[in-house]
């Protein structure tokens, strides 16, 4: 179809920025893609989208990985009557060989539109546009080439992780191994939906959180350390010699005021017990400062975008967990299964685990999964959102206690 017939899309080709219309037009020799552009033009004309999703599309034995997409104008746009999305489970850290990508693209040109917008929010390689008839053959070819589908629907979504120790000196944990391990361990939860709603796991090697796990994951695993930041004082002196404003850019910006710098002797120190491991000083002086040696991860729960409740950031539930490869991450997996069990038992349909905690209370959650309340769980600074004590744990039979309670109450009322 001539470009002249899509005047509204033409507008989206103007300007200095890359244009998705231009990219899609490169694939417009494919009749599906050409009609996809026509449908988009029509959507702009009508000021409404012409897509619907859902229904029953999938491959044998799987309940996730395929998202059924249909146009609501099938008679006018028969080529995109069915235009399903397939999610392909990405390798840890998104490390592909160019050969693997060629294979993936060849399979998609054979069975689909050839369009992709890799990668999606959960990290999968997203293949856009195929028919129901092609789903199983496409899946078979993907499997033959060593790929698997990712998650969709009410299941564990494809776990994702940052570049990790393969590319980054700040990786406190082997994010790549952990992501691969969890993906393999929880295959059934990934492919066959049995939860109230989706559950995302994202793994970052440090608090820079390059996969934004704190905002996007129901379970955030963020690398950290519990000993001291390693300081190379000679490198500190080099920063100073180059005129770097250590006081202004590093010390004064430390959120917990744990850094000090003595300009006279050009010495940098960290008050490690009061350091919150935010990575700021390490990011600013990477040649002089390094993460500690005793590394592990902080486990957080409940991050999500707005659906039932507003958007949540994840909330610390385990300040430090030593993630042990040697025992196959048993402590973490055991915790995940306890969380799922409680959520599954108590969650309403389409209720994320963070929303369930919001509804039932963190106290209920902690008791159910067997985690002790600790100060690091505070929701945000200067707020303590739950009580540590259960009523049956409080003994107040002695009159002295009662008097003390009354006095305490009076004190609070002041």
């Amino acid at each position: 179809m001539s470009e002249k017939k899509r005047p509204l899309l033409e507008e989206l080709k103007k300007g200095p920025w890359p244009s998705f219309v231009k990219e899609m037009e490169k694939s417009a020799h494919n009749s599906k893609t050409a009609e996809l552009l026509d449908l988009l033009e029509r959507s702009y004309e009508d000021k409404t989208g012409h897509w619907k999703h859902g229904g029953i599309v999938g491959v044998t034995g799987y309940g996730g990985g395929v998202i059924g997409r249909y146009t609501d104008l099938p008679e006018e746009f028969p080529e995109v009557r069915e235009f399903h999305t397939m999610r392909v489970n990405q390798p840890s850290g998104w490390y592909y060989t160019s050969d693997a990508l060629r294979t993936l693209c060849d399979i998609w040109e054979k069975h689909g539109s050839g369009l992709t917008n890799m990668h999606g929010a959960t990290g999968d390689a997203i293949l856009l546009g195929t028919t129901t008839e092609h789903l199983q053959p496409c899946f078979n070819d993907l499997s033959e080439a060593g790929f698997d589908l990712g998650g969709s629907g009410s299941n564990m979504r494809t776990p994702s992780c940052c570049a990790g120790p393969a590319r980054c000196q700040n990786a406190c944990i082997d994010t790549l191994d952990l992501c691969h391990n969890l993906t393999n361990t929880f295959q059934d939860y990934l492919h066959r939906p049995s939860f109230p709603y989706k559950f995302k796991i994202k793994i970052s090697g440090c608090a820079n959180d390059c996969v934004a796990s704190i905002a996007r994951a129901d379970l955030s695993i963020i690398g950290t350390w519990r000993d001291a930041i390693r300081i190379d004082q000679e490198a500190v002196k080099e920063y100073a010699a180059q005129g770097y404003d250590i006081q202004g850019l590093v010390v004064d910006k430390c959120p917990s005021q744990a850094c000090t710098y003595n300009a006279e002797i050009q010495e940098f120190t960290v008050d490690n017990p009061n350091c919150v491991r935010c990575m700021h000083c390490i990011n600013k002086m990477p040649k002089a400062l390094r993460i500690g040696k005793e590394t592990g991860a902080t486990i957080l729960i409940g991050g999500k975008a707005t659906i039932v409740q507003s958007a949540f950031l994840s909330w610390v539930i385990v300040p430090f967990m030593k993630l042990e490869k040697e025992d196959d991450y048993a402590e973490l997996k055991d915790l995940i299964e306890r969380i799922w069990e409680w959520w599954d038992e108590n969650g309403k349909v389409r209720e994320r685990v963070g929303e369930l905690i919001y509804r039932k209370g963190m106290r209920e959650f902690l008791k159910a999964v067997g985690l002790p309340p600790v100060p690091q769980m505070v929701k945000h600074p200067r707020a303590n959102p739950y009580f540590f004590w259960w009523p049956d744990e409080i003994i107040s039979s002695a009159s002295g206690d009662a008097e003390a309670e009354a006095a305490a109450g009076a004190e609070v009322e002041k």
Partner: protein
Amino acid sequence: MAEFTNEELRAKILEYLNKVDKAKNKDIATAIGAVKRDVDKVINELAKEDILEFLYLGTSYVRIKGKE
């Protein structure tokens, strides 16, 4: 919560799903009085055997394959 053998559980799940259009695993477990985790396991087996299928209508459900 009753304890069932794998075969009994398969039969009960299929019996229940034959009575309804679709269901979530949790509702099946409640209806037949079985442990949810055991129900999940059997449903997964039945899906792999192509006896059950999943559908997504705002959330995920399971049903007998091809049942309208």
